[in-house]
């Protein structure tokens, strides 16, 4: 089976400390990859490199067997990235925030916006400015994008921070469903992910340099 995302000999150094060296792995469709490692082991850095935000690395990244740099647009259309900062504007309402994402990303579909907000438990908050919502609710606004996107590859950096237990269980079920339908997920989390079906783990500690 052709791998969706292929990483070959990735090397990254930060502040004269080698975060990882000779890191190679594949992500296939229908695979959930959990990146684990202690704090400061470079999980976020790895996800930022994979998503294309950071270019401070050596090595090769392939998207559908072709170098990622040659098909940036196709890759960007297929990607949903969820970063440390939720990317939610405090002065806008949840609905306005999500509509804006639909406007800038072709893989986002605003037809199921109301349904997505209901799924993340924000029904009734459509018209409340996000700065008066809690931290967890703000992250839920951003997570609602998961219910609205057609993108096959999800890169999620600590998606469950500040989310309550039930919310985490629902998101895990969503990840499992996405993977079952042939999508791929790369995520970092300190949760167990017991309800997400089969998981591949990548431990960054094993690739740590000196």
């Amino acid at each position, binding site marked *: 089976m052709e791998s969706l995302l292929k990483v070959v000999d990735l090397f990254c150094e930060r502040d004269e400390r080698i975060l990882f060296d000779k890191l190679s792995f594949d992500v296939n469709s229908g695979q959930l990859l959990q990146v684990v490692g202690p704090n400061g082991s470079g999980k976020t850095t790895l996800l930022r490199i994979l998503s294309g935000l950071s270019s401070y690395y050596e090595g090769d990244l392939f998207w559908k067997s072709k170098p990622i740099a040659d098909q940036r647009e196709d890759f960007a259309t297929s990607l949903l990235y969820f970063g440390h900062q939720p990317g939610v504007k405090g002065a806008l309402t949840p609905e306005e925030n999500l509509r804006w994402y639909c406007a800038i990303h072709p893989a986002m579909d605003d037809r199921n916006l109301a349904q997505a907000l209901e799924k993340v438990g924000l029904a009734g908050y459509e018209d409340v400015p996000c700065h008066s919502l809690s931290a967890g609710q703000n992250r839920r606004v951003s997570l609602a994008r998961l219910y609205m996107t057609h993108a096959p590859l999800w890169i999620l950096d600590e998606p469950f921070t500040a989310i309550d237990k039930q919310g985490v269980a629902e998101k895990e079920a969503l990840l499992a469903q996405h993977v079952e339908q042939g*999508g791929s997920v790369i995520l970092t989390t300190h949760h167990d992910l017991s309800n997400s079906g089969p998981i591949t783990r990548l431990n960054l500690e094993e690739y740590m340099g000196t």
Partner: protein
Amino acid sequence: MANMHTNTAEVSLFTLFGAVLKRDLLLSFRNKSDLVNPLIFFVMVATLFPLGVSPQPNFLSEVAPGVVWVAALLATLLSLDSLFRSDYEDGTLEQVILSPQPLMVVCFAKVVGHWMTTGLPLTLLSPLIGLMLFLPAEGMFGLLSSLLIGTFTLSLVGAIGAGLTVGLKRGGVLISLVVLPLYIPVLIFGSGVVEAAAMGIPYDGFLAIMGAMLALGCVLAPVAISAAVKISVSG
């Protein structure tokens, strides 16, 4: 797999431009202090100047073009830091960079939004300041037209500096250093237009040069702004 990857709505550049502009305008209207700060600064400088130097009408009418232009330039400079700052801090900028849309269009829309909330109000307010500084009535049209063209150029050039410094904790001073040398030609020609207009000399030539600077800015600045923003975010 195939059904997951259908581009349901191909986002056209105009829709994208409109969406970004609309959102930025909405944000500045909900956050009124950003909207009012440059205007208050503009009015304050112009008001304090006669008090500090000389209230003589003859003297004031002579320096009015320069004072109004310098005040407008500094007011624009002050408002620049916030252009990308909040987007950078809440992660929206990352999302914009990762979207398959051309970053240039997004940046240009943001600059237009910035101009509509700073440069345009400054221009509309300027006749009042001109009147206060005894600028001759013949100079008013020159003042309006030069500010209308000039402030947009200032926003475009300033956004390059804002993009370069957005990754730094305190970029305010650095923006001024990066951007001020590039502002000087706009200032010289801008106040030149107003002076010429006040003296009743034709000023079309000055305006044409300002227009050329604006055209050049519209074409080249978005490229530089998007590159600057990309560098800042990847750092």
